[in-house]
């Protein structure tokens, strides 16, 4: 497929710890298409941030990776650190939850941009870099006059817009956003989500959006992947995943989300498992109201129950 920008096959990431390996990402398959937004949603510790870090090549050095992860045909798991540095910025860029920790407090916004641009394009003059910075900032609603301000002189929402401007100034093909609005208030969050939505139209960029907030996925994403204990439980269009979920975990997660239309409080029994010793078979079986004997014994494969709608549940057919 030529319009696939990112392709993961049996992608697995283990962290080494004193207590043994932590299976943070365990055999994940997906394709990310050109200009598409894929939301990866899950609860704390499900491995969604590890997935983001793997794509960006910023895992701790002693973590073990296997399987395959290709960016426009190129195997990312074989790219060395210095190569990766060149990829980041020009091919893939990132927006994190807390922009303040990513901006250097001693550098002006202009310096941040000039550095970012010139690392990748050393021949660009300072004036040209500034011009491009001003344009990127303007597109985020920040006037050029603030180029010489320091990060602390901006509000939280403005800092996040600066981060986005910096991420797109080199026109990358893939943007990874890890909880980009979690630190922001709801109105500013909505403003940033509007910006992200416009971005993929304006720059035909692919976006991998990692979040715990189902509402954000429904509003911004084309497809959604629901992650549980290091695995994808379900993958499909947001319409399918939200309106006719197959996996009991997705069903439970949707039911337990409190939103304005919530009539009745629901929760999922039990707790997310430890990734040190994940449950046998289907990892959701200890909390699943429909679990049967086979769920304890056998790991369910990802099955395409509807065109483009996958779920890893032995009894997926029952929920169609």
């Amino acid at each position: 497929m030529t319009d696939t920008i990112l392709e993961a096959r049996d992608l697995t990431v283990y962290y080494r710890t004193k207590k043994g390996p932590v299976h943070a990402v365990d055999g994940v398959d997906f394709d990310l298409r050109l200009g598409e937004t894929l939301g990866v949603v899950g609860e704390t510790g499900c491995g969604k941030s590890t997935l983001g870090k793997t794509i960006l090549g910023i895992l701790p050095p002693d973590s073990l990776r296997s399987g395959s992860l290709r960016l426009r045909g190129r195997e990312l798991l074989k790219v060395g650190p210095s190569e990766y540095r060149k990829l980041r910025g020009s091919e893939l860029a990132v927006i994190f939850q807390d922009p303040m920790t990513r901006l250097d407090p001693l550098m002006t916004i202009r310096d941040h941009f000039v550095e970012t641009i010139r690392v990748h394009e050393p021949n660009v003059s300072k004036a040209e870099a500034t011009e491009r910075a001003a344009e990127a900032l303007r597109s985020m609603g920040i006037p050029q006059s603030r180029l010489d301000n320091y990060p602390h002189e901006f509000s939280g929402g403005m800092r996040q817009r600066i981060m986005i401007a910096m991420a797109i100034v080199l026109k990358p093909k893939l943007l990874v956003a890890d909880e980009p609005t979690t630190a922001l208030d709801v109105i500013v969050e909505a403003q940033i989500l509007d910006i992200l939505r416009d971005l993929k139209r304006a720059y035909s960029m692919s976006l991998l959006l990692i979040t715990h907030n189902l509402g954000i996925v429904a509003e911004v994403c084309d497809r959604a992947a629901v992650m549980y204990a290091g695995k994808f439980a379900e993958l499909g269009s947001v319409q399918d995943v939200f309106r006719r979920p197959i996996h009991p975990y997705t069903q439970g997660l949707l039911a337990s989300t409190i939103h304005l239309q919530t009539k009745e409080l629901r929760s999922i029994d039990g707790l997310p498992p430890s990734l040190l010793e994940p449950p046998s078979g289907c990892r959701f079986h200890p909390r699943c109201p429909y679990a049967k004997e086979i769920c304890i014994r056998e790991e369910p494969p990802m099955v395409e129950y509807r065109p483009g709608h996958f779920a890893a549940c032995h009894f997926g057919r029952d929920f169609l």
Partner: protein
Amino acid sequence: MTNGPILQVEDLTVHFPLKANPIQALGQGILRQLKRSDPADLDDRIQHPRVHAVDAISFEVGRGEILGLVGESGCGKTTTGRVVLRLIEPTDGKIVFEGKDITHLKENQLRPLRPRMQIVFQDPHGALNPGMTIGQAIMDAFVVHGTADEAEAKDATLRVMDEVGLTPANDLFSKYPADLSGGQKQRAVLARAIILRPSLIVADEPVAMLDMSIRARILELLLALRNRYGLAYLFITHDLATAKFVCDRIAIMYLGRIVETGPTDLIFRDPKHPYTRALLSAIPVPEPGRVRERTLPRGEVPDAIFPPAGCRFHPRCPVALPTCGWEGRDFVDFLEQRRLDPAHAAPDESALGDLEDWRVAKFEARRRVREGDPAAVVGYVRSMLPQATESLANAVVGVDVDRDQVVVRFREPDPLAPKLVEGRIVECLLY
């Protein structure tokens, strides 16, 4: 015990003074001299800088009632929660707890009341001593305030652990916080609060740190405890959806003020204040393909050190009136916004100069014209005003030359007072 409300708050104000160090203050004085601005011109907000965390708010919490205090970060909701328990000192106003004025009580007079007013924080991990077992932590509250002996205290602790779902209580009694999940820790914190049989719990974002799949259980527990003991909660949250679910009434806070108060169903069905409307429309909803019309307020919450004049929401309000409090710095903001548009940026800069050259003092913005004709600048300002928000443009009462300066003057805002509008209290000039 009285039959009145558990908590009554009147015109409660909390300001935090900004402490400038002497060298800074001297520097500012010299700067002022250099710029030769007349101190009388200066805003009181600039001369005595302080954070207006909570500004003259009034509300009541009835017996067994859950009042939601909802707002974005920095709106003063957490400060309110703490000041009503006298954990921070009020600057002004009155706090009445169980019919007794506690505004000025000394700590030793407050202590006998403390068991009846409890607080639960957002982060249960931070609220529990890692070196104390869960049982000790809960029992400790009892021992500090109660007169029970050890055996009685332990009995009471095990009973209360059972009640909040920390079971088997006997096993968990000797566990440390690190052995518990986030939800269990929050249950332990709740157990510690209710063991003293309070009449009021201030719950500050009690489920914000918990995962979705277990939030509902903690909320259910809060509701069950209310039903069993007739507990009242001041439920502080930024999450309108959660508030909708648990609260009987809701107070919406913005920048230190309560802008709308009323029964939960009324406020959600038909919000009246433009800020409440904006908040409701901004919440992401897990329903793909839902077409929504929304006008998001532009910008962010302004600094609470210099809250806007008039209605504090006016600079961001989509339906503001000329009488809402437009002032000098709104004009400078307008100039800054215009510079985002490359078509305006260059001509504006040459005609009006650097934004930094504009001085603002309350209802005026002025700039010295060093070279050229001030009258020409006046003409330019007048010609661009029609492109500003209509209400801002209509609030301008004059663009004039004053010696070598250009002055843009705004009308003073109409007085703003809480009004009863269809069963709720709203503070907005639209009504």
